[in-house]
């Protein structure tokens, strides 16, 4: 069975950034996403996730490489300065490339 290359973009951020991130995903044309409730630690302190203010999420989205680049650029420009956030991309392979 042939698989096709795609990019997986992962964003870890404070929960209050959820709206901003998913809005961006819609803008660049992603067809879906997966969201994880997480805890974390980073340059902006511990996020033990027991209270909205300290809640943390991870959002993963599979997109074609061109979209990934656009997404990373906008994340870095618009959201990194405003929110506790980390983002990275990696290579994955999927079965139905037209889905993403």
């Amino acid at each position: 069975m042939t698989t096709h290359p795609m990019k997986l973009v992962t964003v870890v951020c404070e929960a209050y950034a959820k709206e901003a991130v998913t809005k961006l995903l819609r803008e660049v044309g992603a067809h879906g996403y997966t969201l994880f409730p997480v805890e974390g630690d980073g340059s902006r302190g511990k996020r033990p996730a027991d209270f909205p203010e300290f809640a943390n999420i991870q959002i993963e989205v599979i997109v074609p490489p061109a979209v990934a680049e656009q997404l990373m650029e906008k994340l870095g420009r618009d959201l990194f300065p405003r929110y506790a956030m980390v983002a990275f991309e990696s290579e994955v392979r999927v079965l139905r490339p037209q889905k993403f």
Partner: protein
Amino acid sequence: MSVFEAIQANLLSPAVLFFALGLIAALTKSDLKFPESLYVGLTIYLLVAIGFKGGVAIAEAGIAKVWLPALAAMALGALIPLWTYPLLRFGGKLSAVDAAAIAAHSGSVIAVTFIAATNYLKAIHQPFESYATAFLAVMESPAILIGVVLGKLATRTRGGADMTSLKAAAHEALLGRSIFLLVGSLLVGWLCGKPGMAKVEAFFVTPFQGVLALFLLEMGMVAGRRLEDLKKVGPFLLGFGIVVPLVNGALGVWLGKLTGLELGGATLLGVLSASASYIAAPAAIRMSLPDANPTLYLTSSLAITFPFNITLGIPIYLEIARTLYS
């Protein structure tokens, strides 16, 4: 009972002592932690219970008694950000967006403080108008909206984007989960009236104070984690977080008297004016004014105003009311 005795009685209530225990848990770095869903569950319970009880009280009292002081409460919610903004901007030399964010918070209200105040009044047998919950329900939205508009006006440069985030702020201020639950339960209580209350009293009223004590344990932990930020906010905000509630508290009591409330209700309106949200307002502000620094407004409302109010503030606002009504 002297003010001093009143304060002591308040400090030795389970609610305040559990709050202190939460502070200690945070400061000793105990691994005690409430799961988020427990926090959410407690919040839902408290808001539904207080809203429902208030709605039943409105049904009992009749809307005729409620509308005028409720309107006054709304006006107060809108006015407080308008007078605190210039104070913060020019007195505190804060950036426009930070001043707007903090101003929105001082106009906003927090259910926990209100609930603690009603429990306190009940404990010392001071009667009060139970429909005062209606004021709690209507004060938050205007404060947040005015605060966000102030912030947007001060930073209008990118045009278009502003309208969408203003709309988002309005959605959050009117339909955000805590306001929705509170206003919705108020309406349900109003429609049900006494017969409805009879059915659900054993769940929403009888165990209420105990649930509040548990919730304050959690709030103590959350506030405790913010305590070290006190150093970061500087002396101006430290003073602001205590003096402004006192002024707003007096204002609320006075307006309560003016609009025909009894001593107990006026005290509660004072408590509401004095309180500052650390749940609904931060969520709305973080989404619509993301450039404002959360350390400033959160520390001010959560680590200064909130502990001050539930320990010393409540008995003081009652004392102010007593002076005004005597």
